[in-house]
């Protein structure tokens, strides 16, 4: 499965560096084979995570800072577990404890974090581009855990890994991403990753939540959910923030559910073996019918969470190889 694209494949011989990046900031910065390399690395950690004895502490002695300037439960936890499972000393800084609240500028905070000499920093921030701005000021690897509406690269990777394990491939599949695409960094990262790996992607949303020029990210726009789900192999639902009602994006949650909720009747339009995904947390009865969310055959929601840890372990491992002195690996933003 993964081996056909594996970086150790002779196609990549000849000194090509499989992942020549100091940071992981955006899917848009990656080549398709670099995405596949990370997926291949993550694959190795899935079985490892399921085993009872976990003794690979390759990040022992390294300090990982998780700086979340925006509230997060699952992504923060996933990065924390990923780091700890590899033996790193993980320190988490939540928004409540940050001096941003005391008026410190973002760059001053970045320099302060950098002065602690961490070996890797994971950052989430509410402004698009903020993580890149911080990364430019730091000399250690930075992982983007979500910046504004821009990108959420590890989420896209874990979604791709989930799809690949369930479907055996990504190329040739039709994937519909449905819901509040305008405000979604998950959608932006996923469109680019899935399109790069050869999937056909659709953006399904009401016109007020559909960004213009979404075609440029490789997606076909649909404002009719039934048409958008016709024959698809994967349905990826997005969370609807209830505060969207205030901005006149939508009239009500019940109207949204009526036209854009994932119900059994709508799902019947998709391929018989359709896979249902959701980055979480779900609003049952707003964007997804409870029974579908709980269907262990079609729903991959919990598996996505599991793949998340493996993907983040792979990213932490790959990005710190340079500073751990692994032969052939340079950089790590040294």
């Amino acid at each position, binding site marked *: 499965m993964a081996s056909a694209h594996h970086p150790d494949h002779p196609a990549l011989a000849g000194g090509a560096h499989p992942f020549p990046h100091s940071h992981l900031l955006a899917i*848009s910065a990656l080549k398709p084979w670099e995405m596949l390399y990370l997926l291949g690395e993550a694959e190795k950690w899935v079985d490892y995570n399921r085993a009872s004895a976990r003794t690979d502490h390759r990040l022992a002695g390294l300090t990982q800072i998780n700086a979340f300037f925006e509230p997060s439960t699952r992504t923060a936890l996933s990065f924390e577990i990923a780091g700890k499972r590899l033996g790193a000393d993980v320190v988490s800084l939540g928004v409540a404890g940050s001096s941003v609240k005391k008026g410190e500028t973002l760059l001053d905070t970045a320099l302060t974090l950098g002065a602690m000499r961490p070996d890797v920093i994971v950052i989430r921030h509410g402004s698009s581009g903020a993580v890149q701005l911080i990364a430019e000021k730091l000399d250690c690897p930075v992982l983007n855990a979500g910046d504004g509406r821009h990108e959420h690269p590890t989420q896209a990777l874990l979604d791709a890994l989930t799809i690949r394990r369930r479907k055996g491939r990504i190329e040739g599949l039709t994937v519909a991403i449905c819901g509040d695409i305008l405000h979604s960094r998950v959608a932006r990262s996923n469109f680019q990753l899935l399109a790069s790996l050869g999937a056909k992607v659709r953006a399904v949303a009401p016109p007020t939540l559909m960004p213009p020029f979404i075609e440029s990210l490789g997606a076909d726009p649909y404002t009719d959910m039934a048409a958008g789900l016709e024959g698809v192999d994967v349905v990826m639902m997005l969370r609807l923030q209830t505060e969207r009602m205030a901005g006149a994006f939508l009239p009500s949650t019940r109207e949204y559910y009526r036209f854009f909720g994932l119900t059994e009747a709508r799902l019947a339009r998709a391929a018989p073996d359709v896979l249902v995904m959701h980055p979480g947390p779900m609003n049952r009865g707003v964007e997804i019918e409870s029974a579908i969310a709980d269907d262990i055959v079609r729903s991959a929601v919990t598996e996505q969470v599991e793949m998340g840890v493996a993907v983040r372990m792979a990213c932490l491992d790959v990005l710190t190889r340079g500073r751990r002195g692994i032969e052939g690996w340079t950089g790590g933003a040294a």
Partner: protein
Amino acid sequence: MTASPKPLCLAGGRVICPATGHDGIANLMIGSRQVTGLGDAPPPSHAETIDCTGLVVAPGLVDAGVFRADARAFQMGGITRAVLMPDQTPPLDDPALVSFARGVGKPDVWVHPLVAATRGLLGEELAELGLAREAGAVGVATGRRGIASSQVMHRLMAYAASFDMVVVSHAEDPDLTREAVATEGEYATRLGLHTAPAFAETLAVARELRLAEATGVRLHLRQVTTAEALALVRAARARGVRVTAGITPAHAMMNETALAGFRSFCRLSPPLRCEEDRLAVVEAIADGTIGIIASGHDPQSQEAKRQPFADAAPGMAGAETLLALGLTMVGAGTLRLPALLAALSTVPAALFGLAGGSLAPGQPADVVVFDQNAPWRIAPDRFAGASNTPFDGLPVAGQVRRTIKGGDVLWQV
């Protein structure tokens, strides 16, 4: 002011005066802080002669709309008069504040303030326009943002028309652009930025033009940046609406692709547009629809700019680069040199009723001498003040050699 300096002769340069139509090698004579003559007569023996061979001698630039009175930057840029926007701290919404602002640059740079259209620039109550005019305001401005209420705008224009004051409008629909930091388009979608459609400008321009037509006021649209809005301006002028349009070099030379990598120096207001709109701006400069080119000088501190794109303050430092960027447009064939100099001095001086913008005898001796071809690279660390230019690193041609204000040489290279 100190005593009148020695008579000065700028000898042998190409003297271009858009006001009189003069364009040719000549000696420009200056005495008693005024232009005293222009021709090929040799300078009187007691005059100080400056050899301007190979250089261009033109009226000092009149910058139509700056946010900061930055004397040193203006001198470096050949700017001798600047029209100051009311967006100061506090806003220039009171005759006393206008009167004070009028004096801040003297004697080196003359600052001509615009009075805030509404108290606190809040778009609700009219400021004392008539008293402000008596205090020295050369026009009225809505400030960085448009006025949301059509009723307030209508009354503003009707009232300003009775004093024959120019109304300077920032024409972007304030509601559509409320959270926007970029123009709706492929780049903004990729970067995940809050956007407003480019037609936010069309809507506002259409309203301003109709209200100007109804009230007869002189309307100046400080920046018109889209093809649609420019078409509206052309049509309005054709039917006699008293409207002028301006631009800054950024919208004529850059498009939305400059946002790549979240460059906060390219966060401008209005935001950068698509390439089709940029080309429409170039065409409008060429055909005279856009008659005024200004720096929009709006220096920002590092703290205000070194932020995530959406959190960064909009605006650019532009005084030092205005002439060189204009000359780049001349080099590209957009307009001829005399037309550029008119857009940088004569036209704005006439619009706001200022002295200057002319080298006719009796005019104030406000002169810029520049080398049209001298190459340099825009290097913000050499700027007088803030360094927030989106043109950082751009190679340009055209260097100011001397800036002369009222007969005093304030800057020379």
